[in-house]
């Protein structure tokens, strides 16, 4: 009798491993009705690592350019498009039932999005509806059920095994090299029909900070300022430096709280996580919470007049000097 049991278990285990080989992943695209957000390409890279079929869902009031771009992404089998007023403002309350309907039809093993404000707001709601425990801000995929993420502001690295049958994960954009949007030939399909409008929430407006500089989360070079800048006007010297380096400008929480710059420029545990080739921290002491957002940068430069500032412990190059002297000098010499 025991042998029968174990045989049954063994067959089940085999069956499970066969299932594993047929992963099918849904990537939820992020876009702004005009262009595809770059983080979607990082999420696609994560989906590619899982293996198996990749389907991308594009929902919005205008989806043509994002879905068009996605059909050309290598590895994508299908792009499902849901266009309509219901998705105005990309509210999780309207996109969740759409994802559930799509999942019901195609039965995904994984549902993935970038760990942006959009992905963070949406995925856990979907997970709750499917009664599965999601994983946030994943930095590595070890196998279809084993993932790596950071905890405690990046001060510990956790490897987790997800037991639910649908794995819902948001991925850290900077941890996955973006896939290109050239060479692929996915087909476009229409999403399952349904009434996705949610009357409980109404999108009113967005006020986006306008900038000609590269986007912070994906910039190759980032110049960041902290409390040491002393005022919003003084940030001008950083903007000048950023323009010389074609860099995005970031900030520490102290600079945001003091009102020098808007919130969306904050780099850190609770702001944006960046990992550029070059990160220049100016007048930033380097609190744990700030380091969480930038310590994976390839090269870190710190400019601070306090030689004991913790930022020097992670900096590849440090200048112990007055930023008001050194930054203008750099601007002149670059």
């Amino acid at each position, binding site marked *: 009798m025991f042998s029968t049991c174990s045989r049954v278990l063994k067959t089940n285990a085999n069956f499970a491993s066969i299932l594993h080989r047929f992963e099918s992943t849904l990537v939820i695209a992020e876009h702004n009705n005009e262009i595809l957000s770059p983080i979607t390409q990082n999420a696609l890279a994560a989906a590619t690592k899982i293996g198996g079929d990749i389907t991308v869902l594009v929902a919005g009031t205008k989806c043509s350019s994002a879905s068009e771009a996605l059909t050309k992404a290598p590895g994508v089998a299908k792009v499902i498009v849901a266009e309509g007023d219901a998705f105005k403002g990309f509210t999780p309350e309207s996109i969740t039932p759409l994802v559930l309907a799509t999942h019901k039809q195609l039965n995904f093993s994984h549902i993935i999005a970038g760990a942006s404000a959009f992905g963070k707001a949406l995925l856990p709601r979907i997970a709750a509806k499917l*009664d599965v425990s999601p994983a946030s801000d994943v930095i590595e995929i070890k196998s279809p059920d084993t993932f790596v993420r950071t905890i405690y502001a990046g001060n510990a690295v956790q490897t*987790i095994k997800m037991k639910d049958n649908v794995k819902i994960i948001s991925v850290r954009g900077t941890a996955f090299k973006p896939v290109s949007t050239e060479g692929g030939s996915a087909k476009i399909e229409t999403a399952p029909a349904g009434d996705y409008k949610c009357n409980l929430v109404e999108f009113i407006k967005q006020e986006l900070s306008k900038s000609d500089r590269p986007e912070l989360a994906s910039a190759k070079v980032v110049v960041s300022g902290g409390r040491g800048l002393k005022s919003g006007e003084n940030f001008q010297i950083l903007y000048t430096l950023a323009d010389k380096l074609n860099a995005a400008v970031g900030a520490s929480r102290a600079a945001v709280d003091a009102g020098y710059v808007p919130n969306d420029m904050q780099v850190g545990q609770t702001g944006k996580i960046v990992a550029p080739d070059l990160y220049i921290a100016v007048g930033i002491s380097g609190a744990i919470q700030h380091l969480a957002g930038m310590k994976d940068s390839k090269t870190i430069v710190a400019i601070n007049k306090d030689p004991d500032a913790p930022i020097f412990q992670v900096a590849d190059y440090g200048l112990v000097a007055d930023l008001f002297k050194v930054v203008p000098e750099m601007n002149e010499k670059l």
Partner: protein
Amino acid sequence: MARVLVGVKRVIDYAVKIRVKPDKTGVVTEGVKHSMNPFDEIAIEEAVRMKEKKFAQEVIAVSCGPAQSQETIRTALAMGADRGIHVEISGPEYESLQPIHVSKILAKLAQEEKADIVLVGKQAIDDDCNQTAQMIAGVLDWPAGTFCSKIEHGQGDLTITREIDGGLETIKIKTPAVLSADLRLNEPRYATLPNIMKAKKKQIKKMTPKDLGVDTSPRIEVVSVEDPPVRQSGSILPDVDTLITKLKEAGHVK
């Protein structure tokens, strides 16, 4: 007037430099300073302000965790919450407790206590999940206002300013609703000594997940917890010219 349920979590204090356990099962928590998750302080503050503005009639602070979580609830009571609920979970069950479990517990309590608003911090600074509010809203089928930096009260609705990647966004949601507090929502008050004394008299109801019919069996297994890779120490340069030369050598600057 609304009844507000606020979720508060006891976490390792934000200023503590954490240590990973040598056996890689987690981080050292024994003998380490703990306090209320900073985002939850903001949530409690906002709830108390709702009461002061007469939008809320009662503020209930809830915490899920070991016996020490009661201290966190006391802090919330000292800040102005009216009463507390402690959902006691300890030992291995607490170690593997995840937002999915907490969200089910809070959703159940929201129904039992007839709450109109459930307010939590946007993320806990230990697990950095940023899931609980969204999941509570999902369980209850309520709308969610996540990453709030401003909450305005209307008749049966709330106008929320949210912090999003490119700036700010405004949405209007119907109550009952779930909200999560971002850093910029407010500046939490300090509990004064008289209020700490008064808080000792406030009631904390004790319950277990079982009382609420919530299954807390782990859905995610932690395989290991390790130190992040250490960066090689860099060098202090004498002047701007040397810095520019170094950056040129590395190809960062042309």
